[in-house]
């Protein structure tokens, strides 16, 4: 069936099976491979994107459920060559090791601060509970989110 999703401001329209997952639509139809598939079972958060401004796990959503909606992926955060403040904070705080969880972590963190701009350390840790870092690099990730939120 025909599915049309506005991804990072561009309308992407493809004929896909109803069972196509949103993350596969993004990676294979829209050819945006910044969004990773990790656990593929809505635990790890590597596939986190925004649908209508809210963080969701795109491995647990059908593409057809996003038909007509606005999606933002990690590729849509930066303004040209200027990184999004969250990306900049991750860069400055070295908030990544292998980098696999990073796109999802950044998207979750942006959504977290949208909802709770003054989040403290405990709230940041709690708010990122849906994102796993197999390198266990949480210390600098939390530091980066606090920096982006202006709390540090």
């Amino acid at each position: 069936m025909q599915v049309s999703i506005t991804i990072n401001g561009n309308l992407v329209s493809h004929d896909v099976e109803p069972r196509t997952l949103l993350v596969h639509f993004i990676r294979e139809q829209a050819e945006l491979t910044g969004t990773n598939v990790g656990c593929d079972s809505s635990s790890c958060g590597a596939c986190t994107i925004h649908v209508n401004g809210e963080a969701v796990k795109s491995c647990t959503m059908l593409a057809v459920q996003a038909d007509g909606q606005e999606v933002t992926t990690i590729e849509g955060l930066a303004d040209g060559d200027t990184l999004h403040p969250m990306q900049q904070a991750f860069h400055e705080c070295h908030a990544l090791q292998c980098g696999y969880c990073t796109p999802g972590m950044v998207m979750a963190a942006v959504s977290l601060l949208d909802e709770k701009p003054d989040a403290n350390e405990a709230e940041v840790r709690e708010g990122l509970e849906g994102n796993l870092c197999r390198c266990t690099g949480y210390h600098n990730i939390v530091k980066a989110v606090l920096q982006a939120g202006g709390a540090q």
Partner: protein
Amino acid sequence: MIPAAFDYVLAESAENALALLTEHGDEAKLLAGGHSLLPLMKYRLAAPGVLIDIGRLDDLSYVRDEGDELAIGALTKHREVETNPLITSQVGLLAAATAQVGDPQVRHRGTLGGALAHGDPASDLPAALIALRGSVIIDGPSGRRQVAADDFFTGFLETALAEDEMLVEIRVPKMPDAQWSFQKFNRRAQDWAIVGAAVVVNNGQCGVGLVNMDARPIRASAVETAVNSGATATEAAEQAAEGCEPSADLNAGVEYRKHLARVLTRRGLEESGR
């Protein structure tokens, strides 16, 4: 992992969804937020032939003050239940339990009605609804009916919903002065509860619902009776596992679950001022 192939229909209204359910019979499943159903389908534990998407029926997403009760639309997302001022002020236990569901991403998509209709004994929300003595409103070909939480959960992933019926609303009694506690024991962030206890004390009357202590979400009736007869939290909580038949899994054996139920119920009662 991708689900087995299915036909997809977007419901245009609640009436349309019911008509589609009648048309497709037991081949069909309703899709709301999809955060219980889609994982089952990806693991091929469920393979419905038709998915009826009710996720866009915004008129089933609301929180209304209905006198002694709050009426919550079945498609109200967890995030809204967690933060809605009417819910946080009138039935704080429900908001607190919802804040423990999954993680923020899950709560942006999952719905209260979907979580209840799934009937999972490991879910946080059925226990809260039981403790609060809430009910659900079910719509179907023969009209609407109201079912108390105690009668709604009938077995493992089984509810009182017939194949051609749809959960449309949740009712919870307002209790702004209640003291309550939601105790969830798990080992890792975002995990399901190994055992949980939803406790509320309102006007001296106690309600206790347990998570993962039986094949279905279950009320700790013996604890309620004991508390209402004046027992201390410690005395009453000793009865927490009475009548429960929890299962054993890699996280906990039967005896350990019963132990947890007693400990969590005591903590919950104490935090609720008993």
